């Protein structure tokens, strides 16, 4: 690892000022689980590392019925995994958070960092897409909020300019009879990378089991997480039967554009999108009906 100057700003504004000053020579660090490895391997060798863990706004984690869930950019996965509110209102996020790395990694690594790394197989992207989350960005030109789908732009690419940073992730409060689920397909039970990840969020009409709204997001089968809009449209306004689930699964699989690599073939990944989409929808609907 090349030597760098280590900065610990106390506010978002201070962090942005450091990014403005050093631009491409600076890297932001939250948990460090990606960055420290990349620096050890000399994949990146920044001259300045800006650690945001000490910024109260970045470390903030909170839930209320009005505004939903706020996840500061430096909040570790373990905080999500152990939050009773996450477990109750966003079960799919609990599943996604607890699938990351090991206990040790989840104590360090953050949802914000995972999003900014923007790996196609990143764990937190699909569930945030399915939960219709927004992200708040800070930069010299002020703050802005945008849908999480507009944040990740490609393989390991985001909309962030060198002098901008992710401040927080915002997940809207769940409606009535709404729930979510996430399934990660992998070879080992823990410490593995997803072949395929499927996140589903579903809202049911009162009483009759008809789908009011459904969102499906797929991970590891395209350069970025992707939604499956055709499958979502198929579900809307319909009763959730096996035949309908089969149709939605097929349509989700058609949306996937997987690569072939050492972990799995493209055909297998597509097939698994079909199966896991059905399973994730069924589980989300079961939880929503409670």
């Amino acid at each position, binding site marked *: 690892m090349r030597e760098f100057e280590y900065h610990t700003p106390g506010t978002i504004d201070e962090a942005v000022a450091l990014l403005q000053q050093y631009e491409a020579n600076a890297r932001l660090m939250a948990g*460090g689980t990606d960055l420290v490895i990349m620096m050890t391997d000399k994949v990146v060798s920044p001259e300045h590392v800006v*650690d945001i863990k000490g910024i109260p706004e970045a470390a903030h984690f909170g839930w209320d019925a009005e505004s939903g869930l706020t996840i500061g950019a430096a909040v570790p996965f373990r905080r999500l995994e152990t939050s009773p509110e996450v477990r109750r209102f966003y079960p799919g996020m609990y599943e996604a958070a607890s699938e990351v790395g090991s*206990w040790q*990694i989840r104590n360090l690594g953050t949802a914000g960092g995972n999003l900014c790394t923007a790996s196609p197989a990143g764990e937190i992207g699909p569930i945030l897409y399915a939960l219709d989350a927004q992200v708040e960005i800070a930069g010299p030109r002020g703050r802005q909020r945008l849908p999480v789908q507009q944040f990740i732009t490609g393989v390991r690419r985001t909309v962030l300019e060198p002098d901008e940073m992710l401040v927080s992730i915002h997940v809207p409060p769940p409606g009535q009879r709404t729930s979510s689920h996430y399934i990660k397909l992998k070879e080992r*039970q*823990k410490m593995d990378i997803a072949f395929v990840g499927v996140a589903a969020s579903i809202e049911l009409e009162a009483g009759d089991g008809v789908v009011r709204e459904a969102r499906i997001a797929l991970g590891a089968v395209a350069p970025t997480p992707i939604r499956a809009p055709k499958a979502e449209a198929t579900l809307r306004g319909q009763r959730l039967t096996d035949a309908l689930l089969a149709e939605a699964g097929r349509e989700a699989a058609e949306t996937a554009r997987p690569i072939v690599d050492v972990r799995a073939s493209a055909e297998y990944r597509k097939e698994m999108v079909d199966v896991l989409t059905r399973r994730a929808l069924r589980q989300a609907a079961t939880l929503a009906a409670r």
Partner: protein
Amino acid sequence: MRTLIELNVNNESYPIDVEGRTRLLDALRDKCLLTGAKEGCSTGDCGACTVHLDGQPVTSCLVLAASTVGHKIVTIEGVADGEELHPVQKAFMECGGLQCGICTPGMIMTSIAFLKENPSPTRDEIRDGLQGNICRCTGYDKIVDAVQAAALELDGKAGSKK
């Protein structure tokens, strides 16, 4: 750039000089001369470098030393009570929960934290708790035996205090 920092390790203060890039693992081993935490993979996968940071297990190969100023670090050297080994250490010895020993400090640090959160775990829960610690010798069975034995011992102690 070298700076002087003060680390709180095992309830003792260590004034040491580090660079920005110095990892906690290197600071502990080379500066504090606490060589219990081991370097395995350097990528956070194997768990051999596990220490407690504010009571929670972390892989010290992924942590910058400078970022731990003001936090409490506990290493394997800090878990015994004087000459009296920690019950988890004893259980690993008695159950043969180790062979070459490289993974053992990390295994024990994770096990201690795990048993605080789950004092009477099933064997599956123990395996899940140790998901971030890899052993290439034992096949894990005797490690699970050791954690189970330690759970009984610790539980008994908690009971006797009541």
